[in-house]
């Protein structure tokens, strides 16, 4: 099923985040990260924010971080962002 989906997306050149519900990260400098297609907030503190996504757990590290806005589609994290990576 996944293979058919992939072929369908490739043939029609559909955006993969819409087909696979992959997370989309939009980073603005070191002050803001917008994460679309996330599944939920796992951990939230001013130094570490963990978000669940279909690609794995996204860990954002930094200082004085806040969740500026949050709804079912996206979450916006602001603050001093040092790094973000997917945990295994």
């Amino acid at each position: 099923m996944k293979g058919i989906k992939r072929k369908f997306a490739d043939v029609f050149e559909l955006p993969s985040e819409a087909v696979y519900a992959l997370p989309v990260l939009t980073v603005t400098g070191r002050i803001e990260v917008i994460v679309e297609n996330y599944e939920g907030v796992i951990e939230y503190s001013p130094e570490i924010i963990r978000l669940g996504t279909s690609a794995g757990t996204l860990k954002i590290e930094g200082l004085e971080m806040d969740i500026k806005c949050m709804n079912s589609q996206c979450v916006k994290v602001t603050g001093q962002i040092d790094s973000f990576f997917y945990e295994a």
Partner: protein
Amino acid sequence: MFLPIWNYLKGYVIIKASGLSAGKFINMAAYYGVDLWDIRNDGKNYFIKARMADVDELKEISRKSGCRTEVIKYRGIPFLVKKYKKRRAFIFGCVFFIFYICSMSLFVWRVKVEGNYRVAGEDIKNFCASQGLRAGVLKNDVDLNKISNDIIAQFGDIAWASVNIDGSEAIISISETIPETEIIDNSEPCDIISQYDGIIESIMVAEGTPTVSAGDIVKKGDMLVSGRLSFKDGEEEKGYTYVKSDAYIRARTVHRLSFSVDKRKNEKEYTGNSSISVYISLFGNEYGFGMPNNFENCDYKLRNDIGLSIGDYKIPFGLKIYNAEEYILKEVLITKEEADIMAKDVLLTYGEENFGFDAYVISQDLNGSDEGDRVNYTAVLEVSHKIGQEVPCSGQ
């Protein structure tokens, strides 16, 4: 920018979520489509902003997630309205204030004139007031073009005028004409003769033939500049013509004056008695509320003038407080020295008053004799001034 404004208009709340399942509460709220923003974590509690309309749903989510939540603040227009609903006087004041500002803005409250140098601003303002432009009139009632044209027609010295209303101020901008230059009629030839006896100080001739020079003694009637111009070839006169003589001639002349200074003077001696009168002015009339005084002579001095105005428009209601101070008139005699000072003041202005603005007194010799109630003075003045009187050419 618009979203925060919209949220403020609709109203929002700040919720404190505490406990171990606070994270679950936030995730469930996002999952069920509730918009949350400005989520802060102080280590123990989560502080979340959400719309007022979502509060009921959040209570249900809180119950399901087992999280302890509490609405700690209410923000937005709906809560402001609720807070001030009972303050009717405040609401009335706000409405009245807005109405007052809007209605006052419909009127002209100040008239200003710009660009005038020779024409007095007050004259222009008074004329405009007669044409309907003055403080206190409705802006829509003023025909700006008509008034501009009327100003140009009324004042010959104004070449251009424009009237504009900026806010509540009417600005009249004018541009004056170039002053007319004096047209000298050169058709009638003339000589210049002396009106006084004196010594010539300086002579500058623009037209004509000078017959005197600096240092010459002249008598009244002597010719100073002749209008006859002759054309000479060496010593031989080839021809002549008559012109209108034009020259600036200064001379020193001596004048004798006799005058007297009255030593009697009425002086006010204040007795120290005073009374206060209060007057209310209403639409130009004054109504007094004061203690009547039976002073034979008194000075009324305005102590306070309390009046309100909006721009140039004076509100026709005010309060004036007068102080009446009683005095007695006493006739005193001034001293001879004081009379001498008054006499010198007379001499100081003698030259300018009698011989023009560029005349001045070079020297003076003043003698006075005290006659008791007056001092009689004789003075000899040496004055430097312009002389010269035009007369028709003698040889013509």
